[in-house]
């Protein structure tokens, strides 16, 4: 079963009925690290962790879909997930005010929704 790792409360609210969610009340980088760790445990990436052109320090929210656990490690997923953590760590942290948080949630929801739509076609 796929797992949607997210720290976006809007994604939790909108997607919880259609996909299994692991919700983290944590910064964006923790989502990427959790995804990397899952990939090392045998889950494969279903979506790219750096979805969108919005830089990792320009949004607080991230949602990444991984597959259920396989018996083997997916090398491509390990490569991508690791590179994404390193890339995200290279951006300096920024502070945002409350007014833009919902907008950030909306964009992250849209990005992951486009992937869930592709995913639905695949099945």
């Amino acid at each position, binding site marked *: 079963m796929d797992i949607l790792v997210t720290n976006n409360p809007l994604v939790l609210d909108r997607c919880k009925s259609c996909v299994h969610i692991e919700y983290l009340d944590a910064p964006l980088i923790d989502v990427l690290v959790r995804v990397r760790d899952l990939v090392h445990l045998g889950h494969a990436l279903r979506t790219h*962790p750096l979805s969108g052109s*919005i*830089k*990792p320090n320009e949004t607080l929210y991230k949602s990444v879909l991984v597959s259920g656990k396989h018996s083997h490690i997916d090398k491509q997923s390990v490569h991508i997930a690791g590179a994404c953590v390193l890339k995200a760590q290279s951006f300096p942290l920024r502070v945002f005010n409350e*007014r833009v948080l919902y907008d950030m949630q*909306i964009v992250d929801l849209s*990005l*992951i929704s*486009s992937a869930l739509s592709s995913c639905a076609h695949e099945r």
Partner: protein
Amino acid sequence: MKLEVGYIQIRDIQFGETPMVKDGTLYVNAGELEALVLEDEYLAAVSFDIARPGESVRISPVKDVIEPRAKVEGSGDIFPGVISKVDTVGSGKTHVLRGAAVVTVGKIVGFQEGIIDMTGLGAQYTPFSKTVNLVANFTPKDGLSAHEYEAAARKAGLKIAYALGKLGVDMRPDDTKVYEFESLVEGLKKYPDLPRVGYVQMLQSQGLLHDTYVYGVDMKQSITTMLSPTEIMDGAIISGNCVSACDKNTTYHHQNNPVIEDLFSEHGKTLNFTAMIITNENVYLADKIRSSDWTAKLVDQLDLDGVIISQEGFGNPDTDLIMNCKKTEATGTKTVIITNEYAGRDGTSQSLADADPSADALVTGGNSNQVVTLPKLDKVIGTLEYTEKIAGGFAGNTDAQGSITVEIQAITGATNELGFNLLSAR
């Protein structure tokens, strides 16, 4: 396909009663354009401003930039499948109001960008400081979702550009250029000894504020395909991509793609411009694998000797870029990629989120993390409310004198990945 493009040089835009082009000035009737825009039930208001090169004007947050063009002869019409019927474009005659641009502005989501300065340091980083800009600032109706607002603003900008382009239909162009894209067999017969070179253009296609439309089709729902580069000059590709100002392709960039321009200028001399391939950049990894497989398949079946691949955007498109590059190189096709870099403010970080030894020929549009301080300008079109929040901005980046310090990624077109920018290295 053969397209004759006539350029009508525009040196100024003025508001006037009668819309027309006269002596290099484009006269626009703001009231008529307002009525056109407000036909859309989602928009409550629009205001127009004119920004000229050298004026102390800052435009922000910029959504799209569009060049007014009109079809004079040949099938179809500008912006097919979106503003006009879906018939195939790219042949016959097209007139361009060269030097003029429509710039759309509006707050779609609170942290969006970019900036166009018409003078000062910022002007050196954006090509749109050199165009005379009609700026349309849209106000949505209350309660409109971000998706609805984005779609309405996108379409309104295209409608304005389409209406202005029509003013050039009966004009005699100042300059004319002919672009001929031969069929595969014709090209091979004419240039049997020249290397067969293709262009793969990657199009942003991920969701809200990250989309591109081809003949009206959302590119994320398309597989990799081919078209004639002359179709793109007639507005077959339009931008719905509002994020990452420095490396997004506005509609203007698509209409004036410099890779296509350069390939045409070398066609028949040093190379045979054989194929134009477009592919997407979806979030879903299986889509990336499928699309890059199709890119390589087409490149292989067309028996190309070389291919240029241009990227759009940051982060996960790096993976699409590397997948495309690895797979086209694996077919034995020499590959050059065009990207930009996020190498940190000191330029020492890894530039891309992905890499591969096969990506050994790369052209860069520059380091988007480079920091610049832009002086206070006298007039702002739009709002600076978001300059701290835009991509490349940061808290406290406006000083007491009104100067703003940003990474150049905040500036529209600064590190464009088609090479349509002004940065270079020596």
